[in-house]
């Protein structure tokens, strides 16, 4: 047999692997333009503000970056979990729950000031970590499907959190369904006023380095990837199966909680009902686009934030509703889940 062995050049491979992604982004933006003409009376204006809106002022630009922060942090957790084969899709609940726990803890620990905020974030991460970890334990113990358990648990938790916010912990002083505001000492400081961008960005960037090191520069990461690639092989090589079914779930839950609590401490300053709606799913889509590589999570998250803030300004200056962004995001989400599309630029492999 004179078959050439596929040569591996990392740079060319990376470029080739981008082809599918560029195609997906292109299709989704074409869909956007199409829908603008269909839905809007002033399509030119809609399209102009959609693409340029985020760059028209420092305020818009800062808000866009700020929107990317929870997506980066959540996306990192999901990258780690999915890379190890733990399909955690309960991000909505884990993020929301974490945010509420952080808010309540920081209010209770007000006398401790900044230390209270740190403790609150830690407690929130632990709680959501355990919440997600339950699915991992169920999988290890009874071989349940993480995809389903994490989703169901998350849905239930969203309802419980809604009840807590609108019931026992509702702040009677506001018209919103919301908890009491967090103490001012716990609020993160702004980086780019008047926008909402705050110091949580630093945490997000640091998290990228930490998760990258964990996944690609440590024994744990090596074993985790091994388990994700081929569980049979990992088991054969003596990898602790229990650990890699539970730990990635825990870490991704904790990262969602971190994303949620930083949103509260930096942007919202109280847990408002449904503030995080969609964040969990978007972070998951970000991880899918980034193909679970921590450094690729940043541009993927920025892309999602760009679409969202583009839609915001199109809504403000033209006549479309905010749902336009959901259409684009949904298109991306839908297309990016296709492995065939992702491998568009790569050579076909006969299986």
């Amino acid at each position: 047999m004179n078959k050439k062995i596929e040569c591996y050049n990392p740079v060319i491979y990376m470029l080739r692997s981008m082809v599918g992604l560029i195609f997906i982004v292109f299709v989704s933006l074409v869909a956007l333009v199409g829908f603008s003409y269909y839905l809007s009376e002033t399509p030119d204006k809609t399209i102009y503000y959609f693409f340029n809106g985020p760059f028209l002022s420092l305020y818009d630009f800062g808000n866009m970056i700020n929107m990317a922060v929870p997506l980066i942090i959540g996306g990192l957790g999901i990258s780690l979990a999915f890379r190890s084969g733990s399909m955690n899709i309960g991000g909505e609940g884990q993020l929301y729950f974490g945010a509420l726990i952080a808010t309540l803890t920081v209010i209770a620990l007000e006398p401790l000031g900044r230390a209270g905020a740190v403790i609150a974030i830690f407690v929130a991460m632990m709680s959501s970590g355990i919440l997600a970890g339950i699915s991992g334990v169920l999988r290890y113990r009874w071989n349940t499907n993480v995809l389903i358990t994490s989703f169901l648990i998350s849905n239930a938790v969203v309802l419980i959190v809604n009840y807590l916010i609108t019931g026992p912990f509702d702040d009677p002083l506001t018209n919103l369904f919301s908890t009491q505001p967090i103490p001012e000492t716990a609020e993160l400081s702004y980086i780019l006023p008047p926008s909402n961008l705050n110091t949580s960005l630093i945490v997000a960037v640091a998290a990228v380095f930490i998760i990258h090191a964990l996944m690609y520069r440590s024994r744990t990461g090596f074993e985790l990837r091994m388990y994700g690639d081929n569980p049979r092989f990992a088991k054969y090589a003596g990898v602790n199966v229990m650990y890699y079914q539970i730990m990635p779930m825990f870490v991704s839950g904790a990262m969602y909680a971190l994303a949620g609590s930083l949103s509260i401490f930096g942007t919202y300053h109280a847990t408002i009902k449904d503030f995080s709606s969609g964040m969990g799913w978007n972070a998951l889509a970000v991880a899918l686009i980034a193909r679970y590589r921590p450094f690729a999570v940043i541009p993927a998250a920025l892309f999602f934030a760009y679409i969202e803030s583009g839609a915001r300004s199109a809504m403000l200056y033209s006549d479309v509703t905010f749902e336009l962004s959901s259409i684009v995001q949904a298109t991306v989400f839908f297309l990016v889940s296709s492995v065939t599309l992702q491998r568009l630029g790569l050579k076909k492999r006969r299986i």
Partner: protein
Amino acid sequence: MFPIVQMHSIVKVYPYTLLKANDHVDLTLNEREILSLAGENGAGKTTLMKILYGMEEFDEGMIEVDGKKVNISSPLDAARLGIGMVQQHVTLVDEFTVAQNVVLGKENTVHHLLYDERKNSSKVATLIEENHFSVEPDALVGSLSVGEKQQVEILKMLYRDVRVLILDEPTAVLTSQEIDALFSTLRSLQSKGVSIILITHKLHEILEISDRVAIMRQGAMIGTYETSLVDEQSIGRMMMGETAAVPAKILTSIDSDRIVLSVDHVSIERHNQKQPLLDDIHFDLFRGEILGCTGISGNGLGQLESVLLGELPISKGKIFYHDTILSSEHKRARTREIGLPFVPSDRLYTGSSLTAPVSENMIATSREKFFPPFGIRKRKIQAYTRQLISRYKIKSEPYQAIGTLSGGNIQKVILAREIEKVKDVIICCEPTWGLDASSASFIHEQIIKLRNSGIGVLLLSSNLDEIISLSDRLLIFSRGAVVARFGVGEVSTMTKESLGPFLLGKAVRVKRGKM
């Protein structure tokens, strides 16, 4: 004699391994004949038949049915042409009745909508009666014995009016009474006009049942012969080819104080089945020897590997590594946690991670050397991989995904990785299965080198050439039990022919107690 199926110059190359499973193979099946397709494990028999049944694509060649060129790209196409195949492993729904299984996919319905229980059941009952089968149409398949399940598989084919029936090693799991019943069924089918291809490697069955025999070896068709004109010896010789030169054996005696691995009366019992999967297996492995274990597939070698890998818990007995207990009753063996060097038979899915680079596969079972408490020793990994690649003559680069290598090179990576961590024992399962001759002999050299340096090698292999030429002592498995033991000096006097009766469970040679 009218040829019903003709396969012309079929070529099939497996991706990943680039193994040439069929190399310009020709095969003709005549109307109303029973044709045996014979050959050793990995000769390409099953692949050829899967091609005919539309389960595998082929790269070159042509298939004719009734003298017309046909395109068979799925089992559905094959069924339309009246070709049916009974797989080696039964594929039935345990929770369904016999009748439901038989009609599945071609049910009689009421108004094209509802399943017609009575009609289906009575049709299958008639079919059973016509063919003198023993199963009940309303019995649950889960409650049947293996032989009865096979009857159901054949019924499935008859219900679909097949003209060509392919059976893949149907006798491997049957008792001798069941085999007799199967053969009389096949003869009556033949008299009704069905043409039958029987994949087998049992010589006496070929002579007993078939009109002609087609013999394959290493992917090539050696020839097709009238059964009345050949005998067991000549078929055997054609199946196995010229026997490879036997490497010199150094070992003449075994130091019995140096036991490394000891399997102590291990059994695996099955729920609701009398015949255990493993039946009181008992042996010790010493330093500086190759202990061979062999048997026909389905007779316990696979289970022994699963037990040693820690996949299957054992029902009775114990396994020791020196004085450490690896496994005891109802436990899985801790072989992998302890990290004993192990070359698994499933090299693609258990032995390697196909999408990961060669370097990561190379360090997978000795991770502790390359990961300090924090961080990774990238340079050390690269250097280590390059060193092993050159020492074991592997054709690859460290960063290449291992799935892009050939089967021989993948196996060399696995072997290199495991040999590097050998202390005093290594377990090798089917180390050369499906490999080309040069890779195989390279691997044999490595195994002999290990033995000569005082390592205990447990070799599980269904390749008799390999077993006879490498083993110092030999255990033969049949129906889950060790039926014959050959000690030092005895193995080299054995030939494949003389092992035959033991492999088939027709002869027993067991000295009780330790050997």
